[in-house]
């Protein structure tokens, strides 16, 4: 029996989530903005039809959007995360093996049936997802991840395929591979794409058929892997367990510039609080912490600075990490700069399963257990009663610099008080 690889992903995922739970938006042009209402990160097909392009800064197109009657949504990650979870758990039930690749993408490995044709399975899955959670998906099938990704691209862009395309069953594979520009091949970097173009390799088909030794000489095993994947040989197997995180970052742009050390402290502290929470959720401790800030890239003079410190004993205790970050914030601060972004990076992460004890440890094991229980209790309270129920005063109660999300829909699927109302 032959294995096939499929790439399944949501079409215009964020916009579709918004339309799905708010029927007044269906059939209307909708765009979703990035964090802090920065730029356009998702468009409904209707918005795409109006010629609105991806990645445009909101402030530049604001009036144009209004004139066109486009509905603008701030990003609502509570909603998208929950819809993603629903999508992935349904996919897990209907695929033999699944690797969740991103919030709206998953690779699946499936056996081909006797007649080789997986399209009926794909069409059924698509209909099922649509009925159960109301989201449109596209399914691309091939022999490898790179092929599946290409097939998915074709499924989505050529409407007669109705969201399903199988590269292995089509008779004119070469024809389709010729339509894929070299830059659209998954896993090709900018550097490799430029090199290919210079050599006259412009399409996926040309890359597949070029002499391997040239690719090997220039890009080593990475180039060979990519070419083999294009030829249908699996070099990038399914990753069932996500690898443990190497680092965790929390950073945000502010809704207004921050100029004082006091405010920068508050911002950094609130990020540290969030990042420590993440660490505990990932069951990890940080061995080093970096704090960074910068002004807008358009501001003159441009200023950016970061500082790092090692922790003698790796920790995920908010108080310990806050203390460490305090000194770092002082180091990176300089007056008279309009700072618009700051963040913390937790590094040298290690699992909580093993901890090297140290003579320098200020806590004995009993103290340590008490601290851990305290963190657990705080996390539970925040989980149960909503974020920020219990926090550290360093993070400031009133956060004037909070992210902008002026047009955010409510957490309709994750909070009982926000469940949509239906009239009879």
């Amino acid at each position, binding site marked *: 029996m032959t294995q096939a690889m499929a790439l399944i992903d949501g079409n215009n995922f964020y916009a579709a989530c918004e339309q799905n739970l708010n*029927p007044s938006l269906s059939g209307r042009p909708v765009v979703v903005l990035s964090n802090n209402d920065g730029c356009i990160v998702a468009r409904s097909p209707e918005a795409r039809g109006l010629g609105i392009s991806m990645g445009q800064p909101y402030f530049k197109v604001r009036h144009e959007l209004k004139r066109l009657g486009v509905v603008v949504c701030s990003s609502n990650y509570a909603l998208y995360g929950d819809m993603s979870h629903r999508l992935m758990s349904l996919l897990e039930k209907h695929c033999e093996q699944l690797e969740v690749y991103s919030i709206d993408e998953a690779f699946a490995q499936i056996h081909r049936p006797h007649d080789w044709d997986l399209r009926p399975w794909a069409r059924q899955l698509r209909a099922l997802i649509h009925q159960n959670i109301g989201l449109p998906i596209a399914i691309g099938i091939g022999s490898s991840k790179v092929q599946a990704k290409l097939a998915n691209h074709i499924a989505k862009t050529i409407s007669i395929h109705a969201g399903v395309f199988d590269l292995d069953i089509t008779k004119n594979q070469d024809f389709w591979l010729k339509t894929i520009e070299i830059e659209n091949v998954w896993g090709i970097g900018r550097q490799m794409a430029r090199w290919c173009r210079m050599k006259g390799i412009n399409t996926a088909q040309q890359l597949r058929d070029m002499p391997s030794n040239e690719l090997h000489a220039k890009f080593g095993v990475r180039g060979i892997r990519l070419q083999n994947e294009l030829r249908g040989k699996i070099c990038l197997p399914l990753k069932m367990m996500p690898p443990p995180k190497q680092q965790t970052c929390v950073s945000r742009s502010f809704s207004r510039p921050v100029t004082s050390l006091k405010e920068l402290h508050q911002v950094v502290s609130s990020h540290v609080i969030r990042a420590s929470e993440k660490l505990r959720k990932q069951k990890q401790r940080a061995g080093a912490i970096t704090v960074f800030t910068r002004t807008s890239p358009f501001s003159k003079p441009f200023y950016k600075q970061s500082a790092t410190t090692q922790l003698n004993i790796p920790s995920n205790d908010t108080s310990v990490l806050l203390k460490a970050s305090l000194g770092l914030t002082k180091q990176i601060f300089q007056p008279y700069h309009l700072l618009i972004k700051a963040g913390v990076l937790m590094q040298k992460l290690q699992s909580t399963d093993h901890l090297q004890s140290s003579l320098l440890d200020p806590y004995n094991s009993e103290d340590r257990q008490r601290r851990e229980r305290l963190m657990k209790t705080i996390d539970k309270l925040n989980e149960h009663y909503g974020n920020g129920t219990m926090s550290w005063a360093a993070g400031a109660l009133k956060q004037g610099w909070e992210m902008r999300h002026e047009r955010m829909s409510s957490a309709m699927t994750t909070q009982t008080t926000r469940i949509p109302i*239906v009239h*009879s």
Partner: protein
Amino acid sequence: MSNAGIQDGDLLVVDRSLNPHPGHIVIAVLDGAFTLKRLALKNETLYLEADHPNYPPIELWQYEDVQIWGVAVHSIHHLNSIATSK
């Protein structure tokens, strides 16, 4: 929809995986809004019926883009008015 045992302010459990059949209480999307109706079949025609006599039944085929969003399977009723009015 008191004739279906659903009171004002109740919490509905909606199962989208069910295929709607006549007799089901359904969440439909009509004119861009959610509405609660009973799906009915009379003389080979599908209707959406409201509880209230003031609202005449809606013949499905007359609407271009009516959508059955899900089937309501349970209704959770608040036992005191404080809970209902939040």
